[in-house]
């Protein structure tokens, strides 16, 4: 009786597990990354004639110290939500090229001068026309602010309204990523008249020229956006109401896509790609990000073996980034150097000094006198991939005789341990937004500029100069050579090592929405082309 009960229970459990795992066996990796047309994962079906509501589910909400102020927004999530309401002068195309947005055209008469022509007919959602004064005032306000994005704009010397509908920006020296930096929400054009006369508090309300207005926001529960009736292309926007629900649990977002409660959802665990495969009317795609994971080897603790560059480099040589991408991230990520591999002109991660010395890692460690090392590796728990990458690194370091103890910390504890002026860790994993120009993210390798990295990396003057050069040189072969040198130098220093790109899985219901999605994204904005999304007609 007892044995038969056990057998019966085992059979029920096995059946349940098999039914759970069957969709995964159908794979989905190829489908997930496949481009429908060059540069696009999916392109909206223009034959769809529906109009109405779309529900989007995200894993976390925007939380900023300065409320909903776009200029001080520091996270990609805030940039994305802000982009539904606000518009900068320019935006990004599928190949990371700069495209017109509130500016229809721009000229660069000298290497340090940019002249923008504003779009005629653009209005804020209160009906007032967007003017050159709004654009000038917004940029000046941004430059004066303490927002973390200010540094990305480069050496801006002056911003002036040079003619009606024309804005001129003068830089003190050439800065190649200027337009790329301008293409993000913090650089949006704000209604300066309303801000200056006190009728609008941008930390509490959102009023822009973009396609949507905010109808309701409940922190950590969701947003309801309504189509901006004053938007210049309002007739072309099929989404009348955009509900953005904050659903922290990955399984709950998966469930919502399966049962159609949500039409579009973001997943930060690549396993979700397999788990959604085979679901009727569901499609899942993997958007390549310029964002990437990095490993910090803290060189600032003089008592740590990691203070020795030779040991750090030997450990770097022991890293197999392709294995990390394959094992920890289900093949949905790509190895990268400092210049994000998805961006034009990026360096080849397989050609970095550490990768070239991979076979000598164990011998190099022995030669440096570093045997039987035990190191602590800190990760934070809100990003599941960090723990998975840490386990792969643990195995890879074990192969060269180094023991890694993984410490899983909550975000606050991680921040305090890692970013404190006197950092308290051996190694740590995190991720950076990769932006849309290869020179932008490299700023973080200069601890004087970045500030937060001063606790765990040294100031390498030669590297600082290379980073500055890459920012100033015009696009071309010379700049690519400089960027390669930046990559090599960072890899040799082995203090903060880029690992693999950070994939972003998007699940969608084909019976709810037909979206346009770039294959590659630089600012983590999965709703970048939301005005192009089409909806099936109601049955």
């Amino acid at each position, binding site marked *: 009786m007892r044995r038969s009960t056990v057998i019966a229970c085992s059979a029920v459990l096995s059946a349940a597990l098999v039914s759970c795992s069957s969709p995964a066996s159908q794979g989905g990796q190829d489908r997930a990354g496949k481009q429908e047309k060059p540069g696009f994962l999916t392109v909206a079906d223009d034959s769809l004639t529906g109009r109405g509501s779309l529900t989007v589910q995200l894993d976390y909400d925007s939380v*900023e110290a300065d409320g909903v102020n776009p200029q001080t927004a*520091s*996270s990609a999530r805030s940039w994305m939500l802000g982009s539904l309401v606000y518009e900068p002068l320019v935006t990004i195309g599928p190949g990371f090229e700069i495209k017109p947005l509130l500016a229809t055209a721009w000229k660069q008469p000298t290497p340090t001068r940019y002249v923008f022509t504003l779009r005629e007919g653009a209005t804020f959602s209160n009906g007032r026309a967007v003017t050159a004064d709004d654009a000038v005032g917004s940029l000046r306000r941004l430059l004066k602010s*303490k927002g973390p994005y200010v540094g990305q704009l480069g050496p801006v010397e002056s911003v002036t309204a040079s003619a009606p509908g024309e804005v001129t920006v003068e830089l003190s020296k050439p800065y190649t990523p200027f337009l790329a930096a301008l293409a993000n929400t913090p650089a949006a054009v704000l209604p300066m008249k309303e801000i200056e006369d006190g009728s609008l508090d941008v930390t509490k309300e959102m009023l822009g020229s973009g396609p949507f207005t905010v109808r309701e926001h409940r922190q950590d529960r969701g947003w309801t956006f309504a189509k901006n009736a004053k938007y210049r292309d309002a007739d072309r926007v099929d989404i009348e109401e955009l509900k953005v629900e904050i659903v922290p*649990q990955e399984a*709950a977002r*998966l469930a919502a896509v399966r049962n159609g409660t949500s039409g579009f959802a973001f997943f930060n665990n690549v396993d979700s790609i397999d788990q959604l495969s085979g679901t009727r009317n569901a499609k899942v795609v993997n958007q390549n990000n310029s964002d990437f994971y990095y490993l910090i080897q803290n060189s600032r603790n003089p008592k740590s073996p990691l203070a020795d560059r030779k040991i750090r480099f030997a450990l770097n040589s022991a890293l197999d980034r392709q294995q990390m991408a394959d094992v920890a991230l289900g093949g949905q990520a790509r190895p990268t150097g400092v210049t994000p591999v998805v961006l034009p002109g990026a360096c080849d991660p397989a050609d970095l000094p550490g990768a070239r010395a991979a076979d000598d890692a164990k011998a190099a460690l022995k030669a440096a006198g570093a045997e039987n090392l035990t190191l602590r590796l800190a990760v934070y728990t809100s990003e599941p991939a960090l723990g998975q990458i840490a386990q792969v690194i643990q195995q890879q370091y074990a192969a060269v005789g180094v023991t890694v103890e993984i410490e899983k910390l909550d*975000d*606050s504890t991680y921040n305090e341990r890692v970013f404190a002026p006197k950092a308290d860790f051996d190694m740590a994993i995190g991720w950076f937004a990769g932006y849309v120009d290869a020179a932008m993210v490299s700023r973080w390798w200069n601890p004087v500029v970045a500030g937060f990295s001063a606790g765990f990396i040294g100031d390498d003057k030669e590297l600082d100069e290379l980073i500055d050069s890459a920012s100033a040189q015009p696009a071309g072969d010379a700049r690519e050579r400089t960027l390669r040198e930046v990559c090599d130098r960072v890899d040799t220093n082995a203090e903060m090592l880029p690992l693999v790109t950070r994939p972003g899985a998007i699940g969608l219901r084909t019976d709810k929405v037909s979206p346009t999605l770039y294959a590659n994204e630089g600012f983590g904005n999965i709703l970048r082309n939301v005005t192009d999304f089409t909806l099936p007609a109601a049955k």
Partner: protein
Amino acid sequence: MAYLRWVLGRLTAAALTMTGVSILIFAAVRAMPGRYSDLVLGPLATSADKAEAARRFGLGGSLPEQYGHWLLNAVQGDFGISMASRSPVSAEFAARLPVTLTLTGLALAFTVLIGIPLGVWTGTRGKGGGRAGRLIGSLGLSVPEFVLGSLVVFLFTRYSLGLTVGEYVPWSEGPLRSALSLLLPACVLSVFCVAAVARTTRDAVLGVLVEPHIAAAVARGESVSFIVRHHVLRNASIPVLTLTATLSAYLLGGAVIVERLFNAPGLGSFLVDGLDRRDYAVVQTGVLLSAAVFITTNLLIDLICGLVDPRISALAGKARS
């Protein structure tokens, strides 16, 4: 009079426990590394920015000052402002509490309505009942909520099984529809409690069944159902009531996981986010509320036990004298 003294003693102990909990949670959340201002400003912020933000979020001043200020306001019903949502914590709790109350209320109802009859049934059915009781108890107690919940979410979203997942209906749209929308999470939440109560009830019933007065009742020719209703249930109820009180706190804790899994907008996610972000007022209020529920439930159960079995209050009175 002795009963009244005993009740007053329990009330004083409850008030002291609440004060202790308030001090403990206030100190504990501040002892955790990192502060809200550091987290939202991110690593790029300077220490001056962080200090300015800390002052803006009311994190300046000494700890005793902050505690005194918070306690004084809390006893007047003002639990402070959530730093993340910038709205009063009491309003945030009021919006979320109905969800958690419905969920835990349903789960508690299942626990009592299924667990106790199941325990009585298995306890009065001899060997077969014993095996069934052990099997149900072991399964229910050993499957974690996140495993069972994930399985239920998967099955009910993958296949059309009649109930939907992730679509919470607020009370304002109909209490019955609201309760139905929380039926699945409540079932998942109650499995552990049903098993625990069934097992405890069964053991208590078995313990009472061997008492001499039961043998006398059988000898008098009384029917099994009469014996169970009149002689077994009352005597077996003390451990079951005590366990049910303990489980009420467990249900509040378990609701955190279940609410997240089923996307129910209750207190669970709010408290977890509050803890992650060091949103002190949210965490303090949440813990204080949980402690109040736990202490009140225990107090009520103590009072009920004292009424069900007067020996308890009498013994407690004697022990003090």
